[in-house]
């Protein structure tokens, strides 16, 4: 139960939150002791009531201006589990802002606003130990508990710390390194004496180089850490921290190892990664392939999506830089040759394959990758695997590969081989040359066109499968009529009652209450939020929730139901977060019926 911490925005495990003290503090934040003399922009809000290892302690008084670290026993890295168990501290229930010191093996809910992860300095440089520690503590404590990692943050590592799920850091390591004559930047820990010029423009670095000493170095280090945190907060707000970390973490190998290890903790990241984002997704490294957004799209396309056009030829085309693909010059040319006579599926690294119905759906419309024409072995492997699984579940009478060159063609040949299918190749030199397009058109000669209605229906149903689960397209939209003009489609039932609209920006469906009722009545598992008997308008807050489905992710459409209301909205928290939180907006309501 927290009264003093609230999460406002989520970008995977990173959060933008607020310590609701007498003076509000936006997290991720740089915090220090209430009486600290640290130079620079630290929030002096931490009050340590002391360690039981050293002395007996009185219950602290505490007040709303500060976070009181309740009397504790810190367990440094390497403490045997038996010792942690035997010396576990029972924290009192207090009504002021408080923090409990926890360890990975023994972390649990202490009803505090902040968890202090002990032993952090032991994890510096050790990616697996760090990831294990952070994920263990995060899983064991309520989602709306802030995680404070003491004694670790530097300008170089703080983005990765926040990416892993840390909300609060301190300037201690930056200060100590400064006293040691280490000049910290986002890329290095330079020996001050090696720098003939200072690569920074902070106030401390206005000091002439020859007069710049270790005291100035301390001040610079704290400034650099504070500045990097500002950047990180901006990135979290924008939903773009991962893009930054993939590049920034390269500055220290253990940080790269850390975010890769986190990628291996797929469940931890997946539960925290939103279904949709406004922001673009930059796929600029091999690590982008491991992103939850990419893996999730591939998984849903191969496991949920139903290829409803597979009674016609399949045309595999290369992706385009412009999104959605259908807006691009190249895809317009393909379309002029295909003319709705075949199903178009784009091949792309890093997404895999994108059926035409899902071209708007995040991240298909939002990613931007670095194209050089040269594919890495991992890219080829990933796209091959997705294409193979996709084709295994489909039954196309003919497969036309309108692709060229290295990469695309290699993949097609490989899969033709492994599936024992014949692919027809229509590109002679480049996919958009007259010859190639002519070949493509000729290959489809004599085929009939499918009507607009079929294409629109299949789009609604494909997005429903992707978003709500296998079978949802048919179950929720069995008697379907569409209105509006693609990409602004509305789904209605046979009597003209609106069920959903296609949100053009994200390529997902926004249900109406009528659509939501169909979901509840269908055999497709409903993502439901159960609430107390009230009628929510605007938003549902966490304390009003009695239960929530585990598989709800940020951005999901969810059914909201209670004795007084039935409605639908968009999740602002994951299901597990709704269950364990006592603060914060859980659902933004779209439609609600009183009952």
């Amino acid at each position, binding site marked *: 139960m927290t009264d003093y911490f609230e999460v406002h925005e989520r970008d995977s495990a990173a959060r933008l939150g607020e310590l609701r003290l007498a003076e509000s503090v936006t997290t991720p934040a740089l915090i220090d002791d209430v009486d600290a003399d640290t130079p620079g922009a630290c929030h002096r809000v931490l009050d340590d009531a002391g360690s039981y290892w050293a002395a007996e302690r009185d219950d602290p008084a505490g007040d709303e201006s500060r976070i009181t670290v309740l009397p504790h026993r810190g367990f440094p*890295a390497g403490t045997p589990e038996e010792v942690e168990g035997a010396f576990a501290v029972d924290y009192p229930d207090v009504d002021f802002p408080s923090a409990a010191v926890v360890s990975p093996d023994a972390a649990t809910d202490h009803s505090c606003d902040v968890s202090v992860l002990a032993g952090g300095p032991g994890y510096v440089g050790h990616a697996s130990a760090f990831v294990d520690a952070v994920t263990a503590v995060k899983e064991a404590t309520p989602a709306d508990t802030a995680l404070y990692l003491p004694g670790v943050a530097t300008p170089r590592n703080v983005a990765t710390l926040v990416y892993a799920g840390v909300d609060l850091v301190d300037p201690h390591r930056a200060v100590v390194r400064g006293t040691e004559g280490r000049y910290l930047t986002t890329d290095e820990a330079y020996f001050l004496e090696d720098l003939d010029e200072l690569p920074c423009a902070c106030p401390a670095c206005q000091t002439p180089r020859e007069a710049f000493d270790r005291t100035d170095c301390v001040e610079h280090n704290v400034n650099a850490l504070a500045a990097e945190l500002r950047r990180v907060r901006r990135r979290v707000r924008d939903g773009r921290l991962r893009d930054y970390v993939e590049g920034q973490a390269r500055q220290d190998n253990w940080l790269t190892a850390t975010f890769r290890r986190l990628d291996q903790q797929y469940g931890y990241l997946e539960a925290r990664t939103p279904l949709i984002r406004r922001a673009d997704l930059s796929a600029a490294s091999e690590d982008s392939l491991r992103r939850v957004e990419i893996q999730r799209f591939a998984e849903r396309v191969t496991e949920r999506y139903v290829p409803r056009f597979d009674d016609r030829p399949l045309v595999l085309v290369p992706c385009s830089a412009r999104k959605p693909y259908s807006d691009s010059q190249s895809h317009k040319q393909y379309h002029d040759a295909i003319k709705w006579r075949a199903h178009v599926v784009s091949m792309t690294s890093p997404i895999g394959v994108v059926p035409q119905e899902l071209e708007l759906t995040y991240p298909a419309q939002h990613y931007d990758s670095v194209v050089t024409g040269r594919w890495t072995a991992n890219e080829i492997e990933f796209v091959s695997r997705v294409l193979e699984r996709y084709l295994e579940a489909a039954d196309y009478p003919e497969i036309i590969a309108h692709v060229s060159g290295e990469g695309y063609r290699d993949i097609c040949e490989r899969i033709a081989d492994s599936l024992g299918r014949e692919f027809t190749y229509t590109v002679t030199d480049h996919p958009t040359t007259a010859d190639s397009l002519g070949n493509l058109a000729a290959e489809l000669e004599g085929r009939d066109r499918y009507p607009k209605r079929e294409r629109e229906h299949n789009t609604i149903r494909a997005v429903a499968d992707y978003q709500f689960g296998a079978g949802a397209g048919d179950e929720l939209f069995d008697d379907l009529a569409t209105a509006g003009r693609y990409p602004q489609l509305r789904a209605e039932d046979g009597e003209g009652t609106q069920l959903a609209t296609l949100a053009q920006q994200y390529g997902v469906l926004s249900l109406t209450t009528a659509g939501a009722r169909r979901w509840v009545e269908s055999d497709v598992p409903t993502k439901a939020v159960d609430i107390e008997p009230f009628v929510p308008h605007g938003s549902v807050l966490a304390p009003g929730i009695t239960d929530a489905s585990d598989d709800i992710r940020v951005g999901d459409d969810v059914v909201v139901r209670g004795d007084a209301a039935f409605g639908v909205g968009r999740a602002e928290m994951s299901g597990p977060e709704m269950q364990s939180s006592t603060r914060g907006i859980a659902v933004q309501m779209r439609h609600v019926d009183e009952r």
Partner: protein
Amino acid sequence: MSTPSPDVYEQGKGMDAHNAVMRDIRARNDSTYDPREPTRVWLDEDNTPDGVYQSLTIILNTGGCRWARAGGCTMCGYVAESVEGGSVAHEDLMAQIQHCLDHEAENADEPSGLIKIYTSGSFLDEREVPAETRRAIAETFADRDRIVVESLPDFVDRETVGDFVDAGLETDVAVGLETATDRVRHDCVNKYFDFADFEDACEAARDAGAGVKAYLLMKPPFLSESEAVEDMKRSVRRCAAVDGCHTVSMNPCNVQRYTMVEELYHDGGYRPPWLWSVAEVLESTAEEDVIVVSDPVGHGSDRGPHNCGECDDRVQRAIKDFDLRQDPSVFEQVSCECEATWDAVLTRERSYSLPLAR
């Protein structure tokens, strides 16, 4: 043994856990030692209430500390240097003494006035050193001026100590008090007795005509640098106030093999104290009416007390100088840039952010 303290339940739980862990760790050590050779022997100079003496220090191999066999102290690796089977016969112990006398004869111009005998256990515990051996050793060194024998407080009485006093020796019992703070001694060190037991031992030693030299441990695991420094300052002052305790040897913890401290150190959870911390305690307690000395072992190494690597030898020399002269001005002679780092660590390190600097 000790009387139950208010936190006895928690202490029992903690002790069980510490002992279980320490037994496991020690079990990994499979080396054994010759029972006819002492663990170590060396010559040195020592400050005593009667002035500075040449000293012969003997670490007698007695089969080791009985407490350590139950698990024992979190920082102590000396049990690892004990003999297999657990006990050493009278003849073997006397052979060890002869080995030490030979060492002295070879390396010193004259016999040492001060003999110091440690066992990493309790020399006065008759399960460790039989009464027969104790008397024979008292006899062997009866021609010297002073003797120090190590023991837990439990075994200090007129009979055990009397053997040495009766031989005409100025006798001191070295007691590994570690800290005057019972909570720290129990929870961080895993040593079972209380300060009150130490006070009783001092009284018993005094009754027998002997004195007590208290051994303190700076920075056991789980304490921050500043907590460790405060614990030592308080401990020196409390020892100084006990009649019979005329000397305090305040020693920084080092990382010994097959110990819990080593486990923590290995995982990045323990750093031995700064030599500046040792200097700080010596300087600030110099006015106390007690001799305070310190003998940092392994100074300047990662596993021993250390500063930045530049100034370790200089600070160590100042400490050794202070040991002999008890003059706090020796510390004014040494300074280094790393004092600012040490300062920052004192201010900022907490038990949940150990260690803040390497």
